[in-house]
């Protein structure tokens, strides 16, 4: 492997709060991908749906990673492991985890909608807010008025 040093990225206009919010959302996607791996294992009757959600989060994680790289920053990596907020032992607790993941991710993306410094980040975030709202409902979450901003409007 040749050891050409990577060029130092030029300072980007999207560095700052917008990038912090993007990194926070990316950290959330990493955790979410991990969480769906756990939840999916306990959802044998809805395996296809869980796999679909996992695939969607992976592709959004990758898209977000690419936008952070394009902004000249180093995208945060996934942690080697995550502690679950509560034990996942059956379909009910797996669905509860999925709802929690989607709701918290929705809040991170709602922050990113406001903070995004590029139209691409804004668009990804807006669509993610909608997707996480709908996905939370499919796992049994309750509809809300401002999914991602509830209590903050």
């Amino acid at each position: 492997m040749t050891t050409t040093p990577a060029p130092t990225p030029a300072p980007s206009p999207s560095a700052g709060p917008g990038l912090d919010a993007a990194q926070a959302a990316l950290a959330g996607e990493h955790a979410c991908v991990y969480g769906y791996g756990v939840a999916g294992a306990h959802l044998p009757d809805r395996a296809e749906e869980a796999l679909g959600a996992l695939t969607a989060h992976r592709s959004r994680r990758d898209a977000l990673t690419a936008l952070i790289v394009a902004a000249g920053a180093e995208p945060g990596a996934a942690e080697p492991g995550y502690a679950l907020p509560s034990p996942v032992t059956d379909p009910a607790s797996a669905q509860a985890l999925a709802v929690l993941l989607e709701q918290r991710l929705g809040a991170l993306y709602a922050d990113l909608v406001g903070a995004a410094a590029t139209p691409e980040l804004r668009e990804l975030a807006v669509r993610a807010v909608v997707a996480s709202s709908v996905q939370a409902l499919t796992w049994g979450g309750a509809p809300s008025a401002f999914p991602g901003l509830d209590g903050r409007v």
Partner: protein
Amino acid sequence: MWSVTQRVDEGRRRLLALVAGAPVLGAALAACAADPRPKAAPGPRSALDADVKLRWRAVRSEQTLLALHAAVAAAHPDLAATLQPLTAHHDEHLAALVADGPLPYGFSPDAVVAAPEVAGDAAGALAAVAAAERAAADTCVAASLAAAGPRLAAVLATIAGSEAGHGVVLA
């Protein structure tokens, strides 16, 4: 498919027990307490005017949806209980949008929207509400993308999320 994941899952659990200080999933996903209200000075005048228009259209959209909910609930009392919690969301959307800043001169947030026609069968009426919710969500997505103000963009995005959810609940 998941049997493989299950084995991996077992491995992860062991890993979790071994890795001291593994971050708590909830911590990585903890909703940022950041206030989405803009803290910087407002943008150029033209951007502000454009945002007023976006907000005004969103207010109109909420009023139209509220009129549809009311008409459907009146025509089909059996649907009232289903619609009520969702109607309450539109009340919240409308209140947030109206409270968020100026609306065009002469605009009345209490303006009456003409009652829409309602299908004679309950299923058809409910399907019409679901379709209207989805269409409103799409409009809100476009408005959020166009909004200059970060606060307005975030509010519109979450309203889109709420209405897309209504579309799913009612479908």
